[in-house]
């Protein structure tokens, strides 16, 4: 058990190191996100309508998340990859990968949200609503990370690359999007946090479910 945790920690740090080693990696993602927000700002100005604000925020978040996750899986040298294949349990590898994606998407979505608040203004938020909205964004990016980690592995094994990830992933994440957009519009319409918090619970359930499903199924993808 303790060994498992140390494996997961090592793999997580390894994924992080590989990501940070590439100079264009995370910077490219953030530039993509901020440029998208800026484009929205050019169209709507600082006083976007409630619905547009909500729709644009989720769309930019979704595409940034896809962009972050859909990069090909070849960030390891082949010899390291084949070493990992024999030395590490596939489940540990998946958990580390999910944790890494949760952190990566967390960073990307936080920056996206901050850019949204900066450019498109926070007219629609009163008091703690902005924080509640942020909670929804974090939960959504967690759910996306758990599902897309698996789908991305699948499409890499199938040799399909980015387009296959999109084709397989986009329909599968619709439940997540349905829940999180209705959570966002509830908050913006002034519905109390307590009355719409069940959406967050549902997102957490989805994340747990996707992780469990991935945990069971990932070994079948892993073996050659």
């Amino acid at each position: 058990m303790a060994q498992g945790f140390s494996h997961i920690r090592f793999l997580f740090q390894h994924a992080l190191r590989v990501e940070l080693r590439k100079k264009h990696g995370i910077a490219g993602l953030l530039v993509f996100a901020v440029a998208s927000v800026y484009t929205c700002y050019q169209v709507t100005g600082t006083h976007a309508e409630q619905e547009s604000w909500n729709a644009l925020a989720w769309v930019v978040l979704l595409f940034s998340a896809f962009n972050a996750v859909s990069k090909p899986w070849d960030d390891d040298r082949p010899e390291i990859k084949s070493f990992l294949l024999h030395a590490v349990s596939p489940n540990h590898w998946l958990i580390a990968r999910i944790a890494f994606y949760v952190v990566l998407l967390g960073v990307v979505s936080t920056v996206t949200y901050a850019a949204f608040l900066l450019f498109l203004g926070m007219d629609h938020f009163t008091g703690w609503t902005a924080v509640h909205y942020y909670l929804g964004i974090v939960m959504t990016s967690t759910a996306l990370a758990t599902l897309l980690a698996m789908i991305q592995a699948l499409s890499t094994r199938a040799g399909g690359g980015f387009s296959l990830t999109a084709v397989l992933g986009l329909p599968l994440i619709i439940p997540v999007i349905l829940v999180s957009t209705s959570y966002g519009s509830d908050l913006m319409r002034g519905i109390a946090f307590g009355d719409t918090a069940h959406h967050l619970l549902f997102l957490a359930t989805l994340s747990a479910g996707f992780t469990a499903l991935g945990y069971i199924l990932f070994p079948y993808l892993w073996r050659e």
Partner: protein
Amino acid sequence: MIQGSWKIGGIALLAYVVWTTFTVPLGPGLLELRDRNEAASTDGITKRIETYELIGLGTHWGAGTEDLRVFIRKGQNLAQLPVIDVIDDTHAHIALLLPDTLPSRSWDVLANHPVDGTLFLQNGLFTDAYIIEPTAGLEPPVFDEHAPNLPHHFPFQPRIFETIRNLMLHVPMWFTMFLLMGIGFVASIRQLGQKEASNTVFDQRAEASVQVGMAFGVLGLLTGSLWARYTWGAWWVDDPQLNGALVTVLVYAGYLILRASVEDQRLRARLSAVYNLFAFIILMILLMVLPRFTESLHPGKGGNPGFNSYDLDSSLRAVFYPAVLGWMLLGTWMYRIRLQATQLNQKLQRLNQR
């Protein structure tokens, strides 16, 4: 027991279903109580006479014009409205002859006739220009109610009317798709549990069931869309149930795309089995779980997709249950043919390679 008698049974059931679906008539109902805008006052002080036109659908007022009785009702209060004349089977002129003081503004309209029985139109009349006194009572009319005397018919539902027949063509599509995707789900689990990786028997089963299930899913979307055009006025509306159905079909389209993009047979069997498990669980979430959390326009929905809320009466059930069974048998048959075709194709390829 003849071999394959279940196929004959399925075809017989479907023949019965299609025949009854399109030949059983729709029961009568009330459409509207329309103000004719010809208000004529007889004495101008105590009584007002306004004439209204009562419009029915599939009613038989022409047979026994004297026997049509029209009432309005609110709670315990019941008042009879005199029938001026019956124009034809579905149109009659009614006089609104009421006291000045009424207990309510909005009324349900009822019509009783020896053939149709009692028909009901909720909130069919709105009486303005009366003094409203909630405690005012109306003198109950004395009459004997006629029981309906109709042939076997489908129930009249407001706004749905004749499109109720779609129940036999639309709903079984989704039930059959559930069955086929369930077969695919089980096949995918067994494929992953395979000891020998080269054995792709279960993968073929999963593929065949998803292919046939997709056909039923697309038919379900088409029949639903056609129905929505007549009932809601649009081919597609933004509704959780509809979006869930569309996304489900897209998810399974992804399954077929995934299969097409992998060359190696063993790898394809494994990857598509993994994806199929995801797909089935998403199907469950989208069509079983999410509709319970959200409001939906879809019949039988509204927070609780229970079976009773389909408002099935015995005449519908007598066709609906055979329809579900018949379409499921047909789907199973199609699945087996598809599976045999795939297997034969593979055998042929192996022979060609030699």
